[in-house]
C-alpha cells in the first residue's frame, strides 16, 4: 500500500483549515500508473515510423582548439549515409535559449564553426538509414585542429591574464555592466566590525548529471502540409518550439511539438539540444529523423548541474546572532551560457539562506570555462548554496558551542522580515520545521525556542 507521511495538524491550525474539500488532500491514484505498469505509456521513442532516419554527431576531442579544416567526404561516402550537416546548414547557427526572455548575447553555435571550446562540442551531424550507419559516418569525419590552452578553473578564468575563451570578450556573463549578480543589503563591513567572531570558509562541488532513465531525444516527422511534427521529451513544449523556430529560421506555425510524457527530466531536458538539428535533417531528407542521446552523451555531453565554489564570511555576535554575511559564489557555466546566468541570479535571490541577517553582500558569478556547458538542474542556484550555508551554520554553532538548532532558530527568518533582495518575507515556516524535526528525534529545545513562531515578529530579538 502507498506510504503516506503524516500531516501534523497542530501547526498553522487556523491557516490550514480546509473548507470541505472533496478531492484535494485525498490520495487519488495516479492517472498514468496503469499505463506505466502495463508498458503502454507512450514515450517519444515508442513511436515507430517507416523510413526513419537517424542522426549522430561528430564531436570535439579537445577542450579548446581552432578548427583548421573539416573533411566530410568519407562520411558522405559511408553506405547508408543520407546527408552530412555542418554549421553552414543551420540557418541561424548562433543562439541562446534565454533570448526568449531577453537574455543575451547568443553565445552558442548549434554546430561549431572555426573553433571548439569544450570536449564533446558538436561539429558535424550525420544522417543515415540506420543508427549504425550514422555512427559509422560520424566516426569518418576528419577534423584537424590547432590546440589552444584550456581554462578549467572558475577563479583562474576570472583572473586578468586568463586566455579569453568567449567571443563576447569576457570569461563571465555580464549582468548589466557588472561581473556578477550582486546583492547589496545593509553595510557588511560595519557588520563585521561589530561582530565578536568572524568565520570565513570555502565550499565547492563537482558537476552532477541529471541521469534521467530516458535520455534526451526527439523524432521529427515531416507532415503532408509541409509542417514539422516534433515528438519530444522536452520539459517545455513551447520553449522548445520557439527556440527551434528561431534556429532553423522557420515560422513557429510551421512547427508542432507533441510530448508531455517524459522519463525523468530534473532540469536536463530544457536545453533545446536535439530538436533543431533533427528538424533540419528531416527537412533536407524529407524523412522522419530521430536524434536521441546515447547514455554516454547524456553523461558527458549533456549539461550537468554546475559545479560551484562558494566563499562565505560571517560576522557573529557572542550570543549567536549573525550580523553580517558576505558571499562570493562562482557557478561553473562551462563553455556556454544556456540557463546558467539565470541560475546565478536564482542563487543571489536565495542568499543569505533562510536567515534574517541585517548586512549582506553577495557576488554571484556565472563563469565560463572549457567544460561541458552546465545548465538547469533540480534546485540550481540553491542546492549547492544550501550545502555551503548549512555546513557554515553547523561549523559556527560548534565554534561558539551553541546548539545547532537553537542557533538556526535564533537567526531564522519570519513573516515581515526584509530579505536581502528586498522582498518582505511571508508564509514562512522555517522555525516550525526545525521545531518539529527536533521533536521527531527527541532533540530537546528550551521553552524559549519552542515558543518561537514564524508569525510573531522578531521584536527585540532582531
Amino acid at each position, binding site marked *: *500500500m*502507498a*506510504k503516506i507521511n503524516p500531516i501534523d495538524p497542530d501547526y498553522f491550525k487556523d491557516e490550514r483549515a480546509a473548507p470541505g474539500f472533496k478531492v484535494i488532500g485525498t490520495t487519488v*491514484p*495516479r492517472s*498514468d*500508473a*496503469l*499505463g*506505466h*505498469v*502495463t*508498458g*503502454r*505509456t*507512450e*514515450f517519444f*521513442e*515508442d513511436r*515507430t515510423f517507416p523510413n526513419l532516419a537517424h542522426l549522430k554527431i561528430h564531436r570535439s576531442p579537445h577542450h579548446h582548439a581552432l578548427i583548421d579544416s573539416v573533411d566530410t567526404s568519407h562520411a558522405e561516402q559511408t553506405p547508408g549515409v543520407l546527408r552530412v550537416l555542418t554549421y553552414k546548414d543551420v540557418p541561424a547557427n548562433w543562439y541562446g535559449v534565454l533570448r526568449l526572455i531577453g537574455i543575451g548575447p547568443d553565445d552558442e553555435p548549434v554546430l561549431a564553426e572555426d573553433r571548439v571550446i569544450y570536449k564533446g562540442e558538436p561539429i558535424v551531424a550525420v544522417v543515415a538509414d540506420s543508427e*549504425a550507419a550514422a555512427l559509422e559516418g560520424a566516426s569518418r569525419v576528419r577534423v584537424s585542429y590547432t590546440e589552444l590552452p584550456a581554462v578549467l578553473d572558475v577563479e583562474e578564468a576570472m583572473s586578468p591574464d586568463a586566455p579569453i575563451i568567449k567571443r563576447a570578450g569576457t570569461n563571465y556573463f555580464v549582468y548589466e555592466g557588472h561581473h556578477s549578480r550582486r546583492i547589496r543589503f545593509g553595510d557588511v563591513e560595519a557588520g563585521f566590525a561589530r561582530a565578536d567572531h568572524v568565520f570565513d570558509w570555502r565550499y565547492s562541488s563537482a558537476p552532477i548529471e*541529471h*541521469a*534521467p*532513465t*530516458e*535520455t534526451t531525444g526527439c523524432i521529427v516527422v515531416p507532415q503532408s502540409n509541409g509542417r514539422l511534427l516534433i515528438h519530444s521529451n522536452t520539459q517545455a513544449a513551447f520553449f522548445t518550439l520557439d527556440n527551434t523556430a528561431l534556429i532553423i529560421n522557420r515560422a513557429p506555425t510551421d512547427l508542432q511539438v507533441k510530448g508531455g510524457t*517524459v*522519463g*525523468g527530466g*530534473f532540469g536536463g531536458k530544457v536545453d533545446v539540444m536535439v530538436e533543431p538539428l533533427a528538424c533540419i535533417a528531416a527537412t533536407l531528407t524529407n524523412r522522419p529523423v530521430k536524434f536521441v542521446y*546515447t*547514455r*554516454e552523451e547524456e553523461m558527458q555531453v549533456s549539461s550537468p548541474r554546475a559545479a560551484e565554489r562558494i566563499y562565505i564570511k560571517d560576522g557573529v555576535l557572542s550570543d549567536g546572532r549573525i550580523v553580517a554575511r558576505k558571499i562570493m559564489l562562482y557557478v561553473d557555466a562551462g563553455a556556454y551560457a544556456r540557463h546558467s546566468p539565470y541560475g546565478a541570479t536564482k542563487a543571489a535571490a536565495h542568499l543569505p539562506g533562510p536567515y534574517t541577517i541585517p548586512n549582506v553582500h553577495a557576488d554571484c558569478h556565472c563563469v565560463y570555462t572549457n567544460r561541458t556547458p552546465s545548465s538547469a538542474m533540480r534546485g540550481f542556484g540553491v542546492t549547492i548554496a544550501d550545502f555551503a550555508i548549512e555546513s557554515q551554520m553547523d561549523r559556527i554553532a560548534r565554534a561558539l558551542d551553541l546548539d545547532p538548532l537553537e542557533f538556526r532558530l535564533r537567526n531564522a527568518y519570519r513573516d515581515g522580515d526584509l530579505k536581502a533582495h528586498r522582498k518582505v518575507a511571508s508564509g514562512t515556516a522555517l522555525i516550525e520545521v526545525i521545531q518539529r524535526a527536533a521533536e521527531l528525534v527527541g532533540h530537546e529545545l528550551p521553552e524559549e525556542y519552542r515558543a518561537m513562531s514564524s508569525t510573531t515578529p522578531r521584536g527585540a530579538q532582531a
Partner: protein
Amino acid sequence: MTVTIVNLKVNGVDQAFMARPGTTLLLALREQLGLTGAKRGCAQGACGSCTVLLDGAPVVSCLVPATTVDGADIATVEGLADGQQLSDVQQAFLDGFATQCGFCTPGMLMSAEALLARNPDPTADEVNEAISGNVCRCTGYAPIVSAILDAAERRRNRVEATH
C-alpha cells in the same frame, strides 16, 4: 548482409522476425514486433530498463543478439496482465505508488516477476538483490521494494486460498 529469420514465442504467442547482424533482442521487440514496453535507457546493459525474461530468466535485452533467441520463450511487460486482470506485481506497483516517470517500471516489473517465480517469499535483501541491475532515478527505490514484497504476499495468499 545476411538476414536470419528468428522464430520464437513472445508472451505465449508464436512470432518471427528478420534479424540483421548486430540487431539486439530489444530492438527486435520494439521495432519489429511493436512491443515497446521494454525501454532503451542505455543500450549498455547497465540500467535494466530493457529487462525481459528469456526462458524465464531476466536478461538485459539490449545485450542479447537477436539472432541468438531462435526457439526461445520471451516474456515482456505486455504479457503480464491477463486481459484486464493485472498481475500481483503490477497491482502492487499501482497500489503502492511505486511509479513516477514510469520509464524504469517495465524492467523493474520483469525483474520482480522473475524473482517471485523462483522465490515466492523473498526477504527485503533478496528483493534488493533482484533489482540491483535496475536503475530508478525518481522513486528512491523504497516504494518499489515495498511493492514487490507486497506482491509476494498477495501471491502467497492467493495460493493458500486456492488450496
